[in-house]
């Protein structure tokens, strides 16, 4: 019987939630890496026991962790007993060494001046589709790195950061982070990334060169609301069967593109607010999408104290509120951009975590919800693995 494993990153450690395919009874493992911020964990689609985790701290910097047994045990890549017995005597200890390629250069700062690029942390880890040792990392200050040795060492795919528009990128309130990495399963070599606040970019040559794909976005906080870059994209998503269609939750506006990002149109429709962070796509219905509307610019909690997921079965514009099992009064949590995920069972399960420490799950594609856990530290990310 199939089962699911939900990987939860929080402000104070990682938790792993497991259940059989019924998704009604859950076991909770954790905290792993207690006290550290876990921005993201994600399993390899090639080997589901291979999980990468981004562990960080304002005191001690960045650490990369790897599990090869589904999260039971962890190691910093390159420091296993096998590595320690290597011919060089000692490993290089470079699994957390993220060094920008060449001259780091500058980007736009909050006050409009130029500011040096400075590595702060890994926001998102995206394992490759065909090799468990190959994994991408999206970092703050915005750049894309890859490892081809299971996380032991990293190199920057610097064509992105060195794009002509780089000096015009600027940090959002959460920092200048590369938070989304989408790999196109049909067009190998094509990938999409999103940066807050620069916008979305596409590469068609495995990350060597990039183009901004922000035509159609409108950001009224910018001097030129339709500029090539500078947009605060919060999240983009695609369905693997239809990767030319992209969905975007922007700082304001929910958008879609049907030409791999060449142009975008707004599909916010009847949402109570078109601000929010996560957006995701149903596992079996490429035109069914989910968002969690949030009040902003600064409040960052659900409208009217009601935690509602909104689902569109029409690829946007027409939205229905999903409330069954979710708090409908006095709820003032946020749902962050990487904190929603969808399993591939039938019907698909939808999961999201809140800054109040709840992880909610739905085993019927969003019709009804239950809290899996209620009292974790603030949830930064949620990823689900569907296991055979």
């Amino acid at each position, binding site marked *: 019987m199939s089962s699911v494993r939900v990987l939860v990153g929080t402000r104070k450690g990682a938790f792993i939630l497991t259940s059989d395919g019924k998704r009604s009874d859950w076991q909770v493992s954790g905290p792993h*890496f*207690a*006290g*550290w911020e876990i921005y993201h964990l994600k399993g390899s689609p090639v080997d589901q026991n291979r999980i990468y985790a981004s562990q960080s*701290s*304002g*005191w*001690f*910097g*960045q*650490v990369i962790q790897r599990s090869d047994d589904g999260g039971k045990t962890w190691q*910093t890549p*390159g*420091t296993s007993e096998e590595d*320690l017995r290597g011919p060089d005597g*000692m*490993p*290089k*200890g*470079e*699994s*957390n*060494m993220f*060094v920008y390629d060449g001259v780091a250069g500058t980007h736009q700062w909050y006050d409009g001046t130029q500011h040096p690029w400075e590595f702060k942390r890994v926001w998102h880890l995206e394992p490759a589709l065909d090799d468990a040792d190959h994994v991408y990392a999206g970092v703050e200050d915005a750049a894309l790195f890859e490892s081809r040795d299971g996380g032991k060492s990293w190199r920057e795919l610097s064509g992105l950061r060195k794009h002509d528009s780089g000096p015009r990128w600027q940090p959002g309130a959460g920092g200048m982070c590369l938070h989304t990495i989408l790999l196109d399963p049909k067009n190998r070599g094509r990938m999409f990334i999103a940066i807050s606040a620069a916008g979305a970019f596409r590469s068609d040559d495995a990350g060597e060169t990039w183009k901004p794909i922000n035509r159609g976005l409108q950001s009224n906080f910018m001097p030129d609301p339709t500029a090539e870059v500078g947009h605060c994209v919060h999240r983009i998503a695609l369905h693997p069967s239809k990767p030319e269609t992209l969905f975007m939750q922007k700082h304001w506006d929910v958008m879609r593109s049907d030409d791999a990002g060449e142009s975008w149109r707004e599909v916010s429709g009847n949402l109570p607010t078109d601000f929010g962070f996560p957006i995701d796509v149903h596992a079996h219905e490429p035109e069914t999408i989910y968002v969690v509307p949030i009040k902003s610019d600064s409040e960052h909690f659900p409208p009217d104290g009601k935690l509602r997921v909104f689902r569109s079965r029409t690829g946007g514009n027409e939205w229905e509120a999903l409330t069954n099992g979710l708090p409908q009064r006095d709820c003032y949590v946020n749902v962050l951009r990487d904190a929603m995920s969808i399993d591939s069972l039938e019907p698909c399960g939808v999961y999201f975590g809140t800054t109040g420490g709840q992880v909610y799950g739905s085993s019927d594609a969003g019709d009804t919800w239950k809290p899996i856990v209620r009292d974790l530290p603030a949830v930064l990310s949620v990823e689900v693995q569907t296991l055979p």
Partner: protein
Amino acid sequence: MIRVVLPHHLRTLASVGEEVQVDVASPVTQRSILDAVEKKYPMLRGTIRDHATQTRRPFLRFFACGEDLSHEQPDSPLPEQVARGAEPFIVMGAIAGG
């Protein structure tokens, strides 16, 4: 044998207790101690000193013999009590945050 006290989070990262011991040839300095610690516990590389610049991470301090040595030069000899193992070299995280 040089004694080194690590902060809680680095103990869990390296799977060690409060104090570790490393062999360091004379002269015993911040740099030679941290080189030895990182060689023995490679998962600590980059967590005490910046990978690229080898400078102390901003929210960490170095203490020994009741003195704050954080701003001493990395190649300055440390107190004789540290060099002979009578006193530990202490790596401490700033008390801040939640």
